């Protein structure tokens, strides 16, 4: 969908810049004066910590690592997200659990470590796009700030638990034994 | 604030080329100058027209004998002589440039403009009566030349030569400036005459001597005398041929004229005696080194550059002799030098030697193809070598004779031996032109290249040849009409 940009031809009055600038200044002054005599509560500004806006549905906030109903992580440590990440902020260490193969369908791996460096992350959503298991989602949480760098390193449990409360799930701190059969891999 | 007629007439010879120099870039703004021939033609015509205007104006001044001045600008005989000299050289250079630039494929009006600026600077330099104007003239003549050296940007060596010229030239200009400041400091005046008188004092201050030495350095650089000559071959090689010719002729000539004015301003006295002996040493070194180095060259332009260094030596010898007669001899020499050196450089363009292909190998056997040009350049070369009865001989004759009369026989002997050496390398060009067969490679290349047409450069070269012969046949007239009048009218110390 190409946008056709029309080249603006300036006439000589415009090219002196003086009158257009004066007009522009007049406009800005109008805004200024209007704001000057408007009470701050009536302005458009959302006064953030006090008021918060619900992000739009497509908003890409903090990641969540999805889990199955039995609480086991959906991620299969395929490294696709890590590869896709332009900021190289995802660190994964895979963990094999072959003996549970039958209950797990064909899944053989899960992340032992899944770490996102939130100082690096640019919230582009590429990991979400890349994930074959829909295991990683970018959701609405945008308030991540901390006083040190270390606490911006989000680990596997942080990522799984961030939205737990909001979604009504339990916080977990270790991989549960899978009980529910997994859907087979699409070829 | 209006100008009197005299003041106007003093400044007009500068004004006409200056006007042309300012207007030419406007003509050059036309983007079609590469493609449309008449635009180019108009630019060149304009440059020639300005030069001709200036020339006729100055010659009229010369004929009437008026010597107007405007402030510190003295359009006296020296200035007028410089005007005639420079404008003729520039006109010849413009004619050659037309062909040369077309051969190089780099026809730009700015080149002409810079040339005209340089012309203005040169006349200013030679007619300056105080240190400020002298310095400004020096800069106004050199700054465009720095740019002109590198003007054909397609050539790889152009910028290198320009850079070298610039650095050395700027250092020399700084030295000149420092010297003039010291002179100003000691005498509290910028006027050359006052300074000259002060320097003539029986025991000049060491500071004044240092200043004089520094100023001398500046001049010697422009004359390209020996310790300050290293730039010459490189720059001449890098510059477009006509510009090299113009530089070698006009810069040197004007520097000599200005130097004569400075020397002439001071009555010869102990101070100037030291300058004379310093000059003598420099002249000797210049002669010897210039000639010997020229022997070793394989490139015509470099050979001509060293030859121009050696000619600086002859001219300096004339200044060493230091009498009015010697000065007039130098002035004659300059005229001869103008004709013969412009001709010598002209052959390069006339034969269409583009870029760096200016070695002797490139011209082998070409003489039989263009005998008229070759004969003209042979005459110029023989004249450069000082073989009678061509113009160059009389210049040397006058200088040597004054030198001998002043008792500097040994210097004359060295000069004569130097010119003997010079015969060898000057003959190399006629030898290559006539006596040698072109190498097969050169013939093949010549067959591949389109035929070279250089009518204007050829005409300029022929004019030079005719001038060389004419000055050889009527040296007395030329001497009387040009050289002698300067000395009679401009120097007040004629004895």
């Amino acid at each position: 969908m190409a946008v056709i940009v029309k080249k603006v031809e300036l006439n000589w009055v415009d090219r002196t810049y003086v009158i257009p600038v004066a007009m522009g200044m007049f406009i800005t002054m109008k805004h200024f004066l209007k704001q000057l005599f408007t009470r701050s509560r009536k302005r458009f500004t959302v006064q953030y910590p006090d008021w918060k806006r619900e992000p739009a549905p497509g908003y890409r906030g903090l990641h969540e690592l999805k889990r199955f109903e039995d609480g086991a992580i959906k991620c299969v440590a395929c490294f696709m997200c890590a590869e896709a990440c332009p900021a190289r902020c995802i660190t994964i260490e895979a963990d094999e659990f072959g003996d549970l193969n039958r209950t797990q369908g064909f899944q053989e791996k899960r992340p032992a470590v899944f770490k996102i460096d939130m100082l690096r992350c640019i919230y582009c959503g590429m990991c979400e796009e890349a994930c074959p298991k829909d295991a990683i989602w970018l959701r609405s949480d945008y308030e991540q700030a901390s006083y040190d760098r270390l606490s911006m390193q989000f680990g596997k449990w942080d990522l799984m638990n961030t939205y737990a409360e909001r979604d009504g799930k339990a916080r977990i701190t270790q991989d549960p034994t899978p009980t529910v059969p997994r859907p087979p891999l699409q070829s | 604030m209006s100008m009197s007629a005299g003041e106007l007439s003093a400044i007009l010879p500068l004004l006409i080329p200056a006007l042309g120099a300012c207007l030419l870039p406007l003509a050059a703004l036309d983007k079609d100058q590469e493609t449309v021939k008449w635009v180019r033609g108009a630019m060149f015509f304009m440059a020639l027209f300005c030069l001709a205007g200036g020339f006729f104006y100055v010659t009229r001044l010369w004929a009437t004998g008026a010597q107007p001045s405007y402030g510190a600008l003295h359009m006296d005989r020296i200035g007028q002589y410089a005007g005639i000299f420079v404008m003729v050289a520039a006109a010849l250079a413009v004619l050659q440039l037309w062909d040369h630039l077309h051969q190089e494929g780099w026809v730009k009006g700015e080149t002409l403009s810079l040339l005209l600026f340089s012309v203005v600077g040169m006349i200013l330099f030679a007619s300056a009566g105080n240190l400020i104007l002298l310095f400004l003239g020096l800069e106004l003549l050199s700054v465009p030349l720095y740019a002109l050296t590198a003007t054909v940007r397609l050539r790889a060596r152009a910028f290198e030569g320009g850079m070298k010229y610039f650095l050395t030239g700027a250092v020399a200009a700084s030295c000149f400036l420092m010297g003039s400041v010291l002179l100003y400091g000691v005498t509290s005046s910028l006027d050359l005459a006052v300074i000259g008188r002060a320097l003539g004092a029986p025991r000049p201050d060491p500071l004044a001597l240092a200043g004089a030495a520094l100023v001398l350095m500046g001049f010697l650089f422009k004359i390209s005398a020996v310790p300050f000559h290293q730039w010459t071959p490189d720059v001449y090689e890098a510059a477009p041929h006509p510009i090299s010719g113009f530089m070698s002729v006009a810069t040197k000539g004007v520097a000599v004229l200005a130097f004569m004015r400075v020397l002439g301003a001071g009555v010869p006295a102990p101070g100037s005696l030291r300058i004379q002996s310093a000059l003598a040493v420099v002249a000797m070194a210049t002669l010897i080194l210039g000639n010997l180095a020229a022997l070793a060259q394989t490139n015509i332009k470099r050979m001509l550059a060293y030859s121009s260094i050696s000619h600086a030596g002859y001219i300096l010898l004339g200044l060493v002799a230091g009498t009015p007669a010697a000065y007039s001899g130098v002035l004659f020499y300059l005229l001869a030098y103008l004709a013969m050196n412009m001709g010598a450089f002209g052959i390069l363009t006339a034969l269409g030697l583009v870029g760096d292909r200016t070695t002797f190998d490139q011209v082998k056997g070409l003489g039989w193809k263009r005998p008229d040009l070759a004969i003209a350049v042979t005459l110029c070369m023989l004249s450069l070598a000082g073989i009678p009865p061509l113009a160059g001989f009389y210049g040397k004759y006058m200088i040597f004779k004054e030198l001998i009369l002043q008792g500097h026989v040994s210097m004359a002997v060295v000069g004569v031996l130097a010119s003997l050496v010079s015969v060898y390398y000057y003959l190399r060009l006629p030898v290559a032109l006539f006596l040698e067969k072109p190498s097969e490679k050169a013939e093949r290349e010549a067959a591949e290249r389109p035929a070279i047409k250089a009518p204007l450069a050829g005409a300029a070269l022929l004019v030079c040849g005719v001038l060389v012969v004419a000055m050889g046949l009527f040296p007395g007239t030329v001497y009387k009409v040009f050289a002698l009048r300067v000395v009679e009218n401009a120097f007040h110390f004629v004895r």
Partner: protein
Amino acid sequence: MQPTMCATASILHGSLQGYVLVALLLFVIGLFIVLSRRSVLIQFMGVELMLNAANVALLAFARHWNGDVQGTVFYLFIIAVAACEAAVGLALVVGLFRHRQTTDSDRADALKL
């Protein structure tokens, strides 16, 4: 001994001698830069220093001659000339660099005997 001491003292206190000495030393340093450095740009700076040295001497002399205004006028012209030289010189440096990718004057050696 005494005159030398005297001279030293007057130089240190900024007599004309002192200014001229500073100017000439500056000049020598500029010359030294041009001679010893290889980068064209630094050599260029050396040239500017030399011009400046001339300026210092010039104004010192002008002051010595009872604030002679000619000196300042000359100074103005010198500044203009320095600007011109800067323009052309730097243009040459840029052009040279385009051709040869260096500003080292030792490497600009295509033109030799």
